[in-house]
């Protein structure tokens, strides 16, 4: 029967082509949007796993609320169960070109704590920050690639301060002393510099953006997180589990938006299969009547018509994956040169795309196939 299915499909080249194109566009959207969603999932997963052992302490009201300072850090460190605590200052590398998807970040951190913050991340070149480092920086792999940095190169960091109606931009060069390996996390887009230099450069006194608290191996991070929140004023804490939960929630929304846009596109493709199959079935009414008169079983006709629809679905899926894959490949290459990567085509996404395309074809073919199979041979043969 497969030869008959192929024959029918290739017989109507333009129509088949347009239908396959419709499905391919839908699957293209699934790949591109899904690829973006997958990338974010992976990045967050890796980032969380890198900081999974630490409790985040943020100012009450988040990043834009009251700021944390050195005394808050000391307060946190004094709480029983906290092995260590240190503040970090975060700021955009270039405040004048803030990308939608973040972009590069400067992290001011006490030099001796960088190793703890990066956990087991290795360096590809150079060294980590050490106590006493001045305007030195350890850069993430994407930053290094974006600015084509080697050990000893200078990286320019900008700050912007509002002053009445105007703003003043300061710049300062930092010398690269280390380059991190690729982690697939936010660290790839980070420039780590000594906290004191960052506070001075950004004119932030002794304030920090967040505090990382490392629990004692014997302490329960959830309990400790609650205790910190109770004991220290004007802060909120996120235990690793809470952070994960919160990020997952926002990722779900993001995934829902991207995936539903893609699914919508694919469903439109599916409707085009249904339209084509309905036309094809009504054109071949007489043919199906004849087949029944010749003794075709209902399942023969169902198999033929559903087979055609499924085949178009699979074909559209393959083209969609190739097209989406190509776009993602070029976009990732282009974006990598600008220091970021937006898409990840995972095996899971490929399986979803091809299964979805096939299902779409089969489901859209069901009604036309049912109509063809249920035709009375007598009526069908009379049909002109």
């Amino acid at each position: 029967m497969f030869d008959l299915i192929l024959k029918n499909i290739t017989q109507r080249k333009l129509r088949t082509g347009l239908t396959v194109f419709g499905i391919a566009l839908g699957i293209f959207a699934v790949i591109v949007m899904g690829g973006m969603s997958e990338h974010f999932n992976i990045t967050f997963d890796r980032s969380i796993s890198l900081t999974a052992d630490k409790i985040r302490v943020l100012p009450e009201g988040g990043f834009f609320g009251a700021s944390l300072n050195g005394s808050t850090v000391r307060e946190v460190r004094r709480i029983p169960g906290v092995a260590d605590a240190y503040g970090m200052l975060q700021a955009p590398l270039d405040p004048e070109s803030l990308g939608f998807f973040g972009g590069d970040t400067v992290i001011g951190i006490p030099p001796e704590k960088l190793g703890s913050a990066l956990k087991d991340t290795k360096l590809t070149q150079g060294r980590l920050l050490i106590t006493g480092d001045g305007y030195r920086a350890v850069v993430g792999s994407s930053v290094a690639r974006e600015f084509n940095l080697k050990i000893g190169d200078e990286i320019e960091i900008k700050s912007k301060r509002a002053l009445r109606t105007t703003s003043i931009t300061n710049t300062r060069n930092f010398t690269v002393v280390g380059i991190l390996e690729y982690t697939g996390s936010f660290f790839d887009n980070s420039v780590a510099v000594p906290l004191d230099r960052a506070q001075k450069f950004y004119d932030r006194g002794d304030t920090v953006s967040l505090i990382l608290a490392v629990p004692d191996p014997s302490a329960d991070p959830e309990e400790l997180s609650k205790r910190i929140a109770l004991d220290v004023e004007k802060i909120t804490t996120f235990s690793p589990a809470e952070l994960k939960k919160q990020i997952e929630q926002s990722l779900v929304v993001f995934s829902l938006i991207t995936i539903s846009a893609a699914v919508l596109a694919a469903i439109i493709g599916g409707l085009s299969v249904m339209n084509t199959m309905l036309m094809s079935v009504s054109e071949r009414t007489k043919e199906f009547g004849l087949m029944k008169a010749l003794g075709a079983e209902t399942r023969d006709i169902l198999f033929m018509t559903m087979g055609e629809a499924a085949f178009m679905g699979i074909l559209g899926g393959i083209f969609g994956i190739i097209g989406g894959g190509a776009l993602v490949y070029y976009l990732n290459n282009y974006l990598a040169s600008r220091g970021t990567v937006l898409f990840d085509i995972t095996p899971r996404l490929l399986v979803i795309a091809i299964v979805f395309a096939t299902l779409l074809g089969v489901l859209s073919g069901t009604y036309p196939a049912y109509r063809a199979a249920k035709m009375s041979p007598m009526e069908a043969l009379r049909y002109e």
Partner: protein
Amino acid sequence: MSEPILRVRGLSKTYMQGKIPVHALSDVTFDVERGEFLSIVGPSGSGKSTLLSMIGLLDKPTGGSVFIEDIEITRASESDAPRIRREKIGFIFQHFNLIPTLTALENVDIAMRFARVPKNKRKKTAIELLTQMGIGDRINHKPSELSGGEQQRVAIARALANHPAIILADEPTGEVDTKTRDMIVGLLKGLSEEGHTILIVTHDTAVSQQTERIITMRDGGIASDKQVDRGVSRNPG
């Protein structure tokens, strides 16, 4: 006399045209013996095509029964109907009804596909049948590349493919010129001499005169039933 291969008993068909019942067939009864070559004639609307579609299991009667080789096909369930159509009945249509996208060979092959005949055997049988029909050199041509006579010969080969008990031909010469008509009737006659049972519905007396027996229909019933050679009238019912 041999046993009847086809028995039609009290067959009736009533359509509703709006609220008015139309009796397309009423109480039709006759037998057909194995190897018989008979024609059913009559004016338009006399019920001959309706009769053929009941025998061919394309339509359900409102009353009566049809038996082919002692199986009451009119009681066949929806799921049994395809098998009966494949095994018992071979159709030849006025408009040939070949599938335009398939070649002559594939048009014969497809009937055997539904009967789940293995591929090698299908091809062999199809070539044999088309050669027997005298178009062995045209097997890879599509219907649009064949003349009317050639198309009808493909259709006859297709009807024979599954060795049916009866071949039903609905105006098989309605679309061809007289020369082709004679050739087609000659072919059908030859098949009947080989033992095939053939029922032809026709308007054309030149065709019916070639058959052994003529059933004339009028107003949904049998008006006369005559053996052509002997000119003996049979009892209609």
